[in-house]
């Protein structure tokens, strides 16, 4: 089995699994097994997957530690809310999502060019600073509704739409990672100086990864606005960035399947601990420290889980037996 065939087979299996989830959950919604309460959790999972996949590209695959993802999310959310509040048609929603994503990406580039020269913790603090600035502006501008925020945002999202956005996001980011650009990003993560001396334009690829991450954060934010009706500037504080980072870290920096699993696990834990919200934060904190102490690579490390992976192992063993 050559590589091309194998890859095609992987794609088919992934698509079958993805379509399966769409059909099963849609059936459960129609059968009224999943009600609006559970639907909130499912929407959160989808939105968090979109946000965390973008952050994973930046932090997990390119090795640039960003603590400002909530800022880009805020841009997408407010853009979408402002567009849909104006006339409330599906077209305005589509325009809002696009505008949010593109604006976030532009901000990503503008922020990325100066700050991505910084390394490690300095970059983390600079991105945090930018996210705080975005939040403070959202809190003080009239177009974003000031400290009260925006409410009564028309709802356009439903399960198939969230599903489609999630799957397309994952496919695009995985495709990017497997492209030559993506390999350049991984090279930067592994050793920036070595990558640079091999002729990789590190700044260009770092900014590229950052802009893509911001783009999807914008989409995630737009979907958030449309799903949860209300936007408040405080939602997009430091805490939100940590929430997203937590998904990436728990799943494993550099593992997309890890991100998906972690988003689901964390959302379900949150749902179960709904009535003890203070305890939930304590547990969250303990979990974060415990993961770092005992399993810093996260659930999946940088490996991917999947049927294809499992098959590959079987196939590798097979020739030996012959």
């Amino acid at each position, binding site marked *: 089995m050559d590589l091309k065939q194998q890859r095609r087979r992987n794609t088919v299996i992934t698509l079958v699994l993805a379509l399966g989830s769409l059909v099963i959950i849609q059936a459960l919604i129609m059968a009224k097994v999943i009600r609006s309460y559970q639907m909130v959790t499912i929407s959160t999972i989808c939105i968090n997957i979109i946000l965390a996949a973008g952050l994973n590209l930046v932090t997990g695959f390119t090795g640039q530690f960003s603590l400002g993802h909530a800022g880009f999310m805020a841009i997408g959310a407010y853009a979408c809310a402002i567009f849909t509040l104006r006339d409330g048609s599906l077209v305005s929603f589509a325009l809002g999502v696009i505008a949010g994503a593109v604006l976030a990406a532009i901000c990503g580039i503008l922020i990325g060019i100066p700050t991505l020269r910084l390394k490690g913790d300095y970059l983390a603090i600079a991105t945090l600073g*930018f996210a705080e600035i975005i939040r403070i502006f959202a809190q003080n501008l009239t177009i974003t509704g000031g400290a009260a925020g925006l409410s009564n945002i028309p709802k356009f999202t439903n399960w198939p739409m969230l599903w489609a956005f999630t799957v397309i996001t994952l496919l695009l980011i995985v495709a990017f990672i497997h492209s030559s650009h993506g390999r350049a990003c991984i090279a930067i993560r592994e050793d920036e100086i070595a990558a640079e001396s091999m002729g990789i334009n590190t700044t260009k690829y770092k900014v590229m990864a950052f802009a893509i991450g911001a783009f999807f954060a914008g989409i995630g934010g737009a979907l958030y606005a449309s799903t949860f009706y209300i936007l408040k500037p405080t939602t997009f504080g430091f805490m939100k960035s940590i929430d997203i980072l937590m998904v990436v870290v728990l799943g494993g920096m550099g593992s997309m399947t890890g991100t998906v699993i972690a988003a689901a696990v964390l959302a379900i834990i949150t749902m179960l601990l709904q009535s003890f919200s203070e305890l939930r934060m304590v547990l969250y904190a303990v979990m974060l420290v415990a993961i*770092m102490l005992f399993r810093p690579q996260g659930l999946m490390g940088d490996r991917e889980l999947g049927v294809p992976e499992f098959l590959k192992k079987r196939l590798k063993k097979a020739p030996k037996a012959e």
Partner: protein
Amino acid sequence: MDQFLQQVVNGLSLGSIYALIALGYTMVYGIIKLINFAHGDIYMLGAYIGFAVVTIGGLGFFPALIIAMVLCAVIGIVTERIAYKPLRNSPRITLLITAIGVSFFMEYIMVYFVGANVRAFPDVLPKTQYRLGSIVINLQQIVIILTTIALMVLLQFIVHKTKIGKAMRAVSADRDAAELMGVKVDRTISATFAIGSALAGAGGVLVGIFYNSINPLMGMMPGLKAFVAAVFGGIGIIPGAMIGGVSIGVIETMVSGYGSSMYKDAVVFAILILVLIFKPSGLLGKNTREKV
């Protein structure tokens, strides 16, 4: 002009609190290259300890200050032992995420036990006001500034004249070489955490006096601003943290006084980003080259 001088006085008292927190950031960063996100929460714990000593213990300002400093030092050592020591040879990102986790742990364990509501810090000092021309100075402000100066002098003495200070400087210059020379690295790092946390605890009590209110999440924003102050002055450099803290305090008061208080936090972060872009080593920092 009078208003300007008044703002300077207000800025100096706020700035000296930032400087106290920034010192802890800078010392810890200097010695183990960790941005200790939990540092702002140690300061919050200091404020709560001070609050407890004054309201439950019925003691005055100085006992509150000293008890808060001692307890915060212990908390600092314990945190380092439990959360940071096992990760000493891990990548710095791992350490940074751990610090964020510790920070949230402290915040929400306090929310869990004492509630998220804001408490009024009791008046431990008489509300005397002094007039210098048209400038009004509170007794509180004088106490804050004098305490800060005393603590800074003490810190300079410890760092430059004592054996443990010498060990701290040695470990921060080159940990491996210091260890080979017989410096007890673990003990030195613990001492650094203890001193840094004690200063933050003092800052917490002082801020209780300054703002009259405390809550479990109060450490987040001043913690970040103190970090900005540390970066502004040159992280890892003790006089840098003092200058940075005072400058950030004065700038912040000026922005609220003359511009809009809504944007004062944004200005602080904008300064951080400008410093990081144009002179990442800070005001007093030296440029270092990265070796392959």
